[in-house]
């Protein structure tokens, strides 16, 4: 940013913070250095107008509460002011432990989605007199995955409560389909990002995995277009959608093999051929079928029949791929 513009914006904030009256654009032009001076030409007026419009937008963008209004009935045009009470961060005093907690917590966003917001929040707290020492070592460090391009537009739409449309493809579908939702919020659950919202076509709450969103989501319509349910708990909506009925699976494993399966299995004793019979429980049968097939001849599925078929199907594909090679 050009130094001149930054200087002008700082002067504008100082001037408007320092007054209770609404200040007209013409007055601002004369008291804040850096604006095109009034030389009586339309060209200069136009240049000032453009500059001032951009400056107002810039200040609002960073969160300066710029008010518009008239001080008295005799004013012929709207003026501007910044109410100090709305502008200033309220008093906040943190103990050393509390400040350390803030410093540690904000590392969550390190290189992740809200990294910029976390950094500027930290700057403001420090400016409020809080000493945040981020170098202080704590033994736990949470971190989030940064690579989720759909996060930004989905987050902005949920924050602003605007309708959102995107293309979404489930793994069992060949093509993506268009979804239109009122986005309630985003959840990082077991390391993956999910969007929770009201699906406008299905007229029901739905959970979407962000990694299955293809292309860039688009927000449309007015801000504040809907209100999420009052008792909404984002994380439990996602947890609920992932909770499915548990299935029992019985397999035979050759002795000393399939260590990973045995860690979560109940032993049913030896089979007549000397293999170990194991009982497994799963809420994700297709993932288990993948895992069972990967054990190759070390593992044989006894029951249920559906699981046997799923594993045989996978093994057949693997064998066929080998023929081609």
């Amino acid at each position: 940013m050009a130094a001149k513009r930054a200087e002008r914006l700082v002067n504008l904030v100082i001037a408007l913070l320092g007054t209770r009256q609404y200040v007209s654009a013409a007055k601002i032009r004369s008291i804040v250095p850096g604006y095109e001076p009034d030389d009586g030409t339309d060209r200069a007026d136009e240049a000032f107008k453009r500059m001032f419009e951009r400056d107002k937008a810039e200040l609002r963008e960073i969160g300066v509460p710029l008010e518009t209004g008239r001080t008295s009935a005799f004013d012929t045009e709207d003026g501007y002011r910044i109410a100090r009470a709305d502008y200033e961060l309220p008093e906040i005093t943190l103990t050393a432990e509390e400040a350390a907690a803030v410093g540690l917590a904000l590392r969550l966003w390190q290189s992740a989605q809200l990294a910029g917001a976390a950094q500027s929040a930290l700057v403001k707290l420090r400016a409020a007199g809080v000493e945040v020492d981020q170098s202080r070592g704590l033994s736990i460090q949470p971190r989030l995955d940064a690579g989720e391009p759909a996060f930004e537009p989905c987050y902005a739409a949920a924050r602003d409560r605007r309708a959102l449309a995107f293309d979404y493809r489930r793994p069992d579908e060949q093509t993506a389909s268009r979804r239109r939702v009122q986005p309630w919020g985003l959840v990082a659950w077991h390391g993956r990002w999910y969007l929770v919202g009201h699906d406008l076509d299905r007229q029901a709450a739905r959970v979407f995995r962000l990694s299955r969103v293809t292309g860039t989501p688009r927000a449309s319509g007015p801000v504040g277009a809907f209100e999420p349910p009052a008792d909404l708990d984002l994380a439990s909506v996602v947890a609920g959608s992932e909770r499915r009925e548990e299935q029992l699976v019985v397999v035979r494993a050759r002795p000393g093999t399939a260590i990973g399966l045995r860690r979560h299995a109940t032993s049913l004793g030896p089979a007549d051929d000397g293999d170990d019979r194991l009982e497994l429980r799963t809420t994700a049968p297709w993932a288990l079928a993948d895992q069972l097939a990967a054990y190759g001849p070390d593992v044989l599925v006894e029951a249920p029949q559906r699981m046997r078929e799923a594993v045989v199907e996978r093994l057949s594909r693997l064998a066929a791929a080998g023929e081609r090679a």
Partner: protein
Amino acid sequence: MTAPSTAERMTRLLALVPYLTARPDGVRLADAAADFGVTEAQLRRDLDLLWVCGLPGHGPGDLIDLAFEGDRVRITFTAGMVRPLRLSTDEAVALIVALRTLLELPGLAEGEAVSRALAKVSAAAGHPAEVRAPVAVSVDARAQSLAVVRDGLERHRALHLHYYVPSRDERTERTVDPMRLLLVDGHWYLEAWCRNAEGVRLFRLDRIDDVAVLDEAAAPPPQAHERDLADGLYQPGAAEPLVRLRLARTARWVADYYPVEEQTEVTDPPGGLAVTVRTSDLGWARRLVASLGGAATVDEPVELATQVAEEARAALARYTD
């Protein structure tokens, strides 16, 4: 949207005067630069700019005034900018969600301080404590070994682990010197010096079958450095052999999950991806390909492709017996 640098600099410029106001005895320039996350040169440019700003009139008594004393700076006139700007919605969300996430971490010794910080920050953000942030982070608190590992870390003791290695489908036993605990993408990891492997290793907590705190001080050797996780958890050596895979559409996630060196869109299979992975562990590669159940085929090395197919045929034979 404005360019991030513009908003960033304005936020900093508006915060600098209040920052100095809160520290009436002055601050070392280097410390202030570190607090704002900028270089000292940038901080000087910011201060130079503020020095010519001030109240309308812009006479000598109206301008922001700073006193430089050696390597320190002090504010002598604020021109009315005494408090920082309020937190924006995004800033409040970043703070509140991060503190709530921390609060969810099981057995956190600092839990009390986190709750108090959360209450104070929520109040200052102008939201009630139960503010409905549009973001939530859910933490897996079930890892049973977590309490023991934390205990070892806090008391600086060595740990004895029974650890499951999925790439070899093996249970191992080892003694480690714990360094730190990480929560990466929803999984807990212990970073530690492994005395058996003589190197720094990451142990995923849900793969620890048993852990005991030893009566022995943790002593990671000087060459034990914390890994930079910016490039992901798996960091293969450059000298390791290449494995070339062809991923079907349903297996494309592999390219996001593992560090692939090259990736090319292919039409066979439709919507597929050809990727190159470096690994010296062909056992791992065989398990990966087999677990994808045909959604990945091996282009190279040939022996890997043969092995996968032979295993599958041997397994199929058991079903047709």
